[in-house]
């Protein structure tokens, strides 16, 4: 009886989708914040300020500290929201897996300098 109940709970795969998509949002946040910092000097300064607010030695590593911060904020916040939104739901996991792969590919392009320069032009 207990085992059946446990398996029923675990069959809800929403938490898998939440963890996977939150990781993707985290790396996308990194890529987007990098792209924004290339496009705007003001945004670059703001991003650096965010990093300086809490990362030790952020002065030495520049705006990278803020981009890391946005990755962590995007990842943590989206995981929290998606966890509560999807934890009791059964979702079509193959769609989320595909979305994860597309998101990671976009994030990779956003940190590839030749691509960033094309967009910045």
């Amino acid at each position: 009886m207990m085992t059946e109940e446990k398996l029923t709970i675990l069959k809800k795969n929403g938490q898998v989708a939440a963890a996977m998509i939150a990781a993707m949002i985290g790396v996308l946040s990194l890529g987007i914040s990098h792209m924004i910092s290339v496009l705007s000097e003001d945004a670059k300064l703001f991003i650096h300020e965010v990093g300086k607010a809490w990362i030790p030695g952020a002065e030495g590593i520049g705006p990278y500290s803020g981009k890391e911060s946005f990755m962590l904020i995007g990842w943590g916040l989206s995981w929290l929201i998606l966890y509560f939104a999807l934890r009791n739901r059964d979702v079509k996991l193959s769609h989320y897996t595909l979305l994860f792969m597309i998101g990671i590919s976009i994030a990779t392009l956003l940190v590839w300098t030749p691509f960033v320069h094309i967009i910045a032009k």
Partner: protein
Amino acid sequence: MAETTSRERNSLKNAVIAGWVILTVFLGFVLGFSAPWEDLMGESPFASIATIHGMFATLGVIIGSATGYLGWRLLLGHLKAYRDLRILATISAVLAFLAAVSGNMIYTAYRGEGGPREFFKGNFPEIHEIFFEFKEFIGLFPLPIAVAATFILWKYRDSLPVDENIRNAVGVMIAVAWTVLMIVFVLGAAITKLMAV
């Protein structure tokens, strides 16, 4: 009779392990205290943290490759060693975190006056702008991915053997993290070869 044989086998195994540990510790002490490590590390004030970062990265690749292999077996539906995968994925996630933190510390040296960034910008700007920048960013990718995969492997450990969709999701995540890890490691080694901190 069978019990005696099993006991003898266990005692032989224990003797081999004990011998191996004793020899390793002995050689470790001899090499550790007699080698001129300062010469090998160089004079940079960042030599220690650079070495630590390199060790985390190397360990990450070794453990990450073992995790990647088990993840591939998981994706194919051939995995039996679920417990091994859970443990290796957990270690991989911890190493991804440690490599990122130590990477932050060494990045200060990279950007500092007279550091590699200045050298590359003056001599080979593409090395910094394309390869290093790419490495520094995708080097962070394995952290959230490995943590998410580890979470799923522990949380859904009962479902994994029977749910192909969850296996596929985790298998893909591990494959992505491993691929990124290899790219970062190769780029890191290549850039360090041109100029270390």
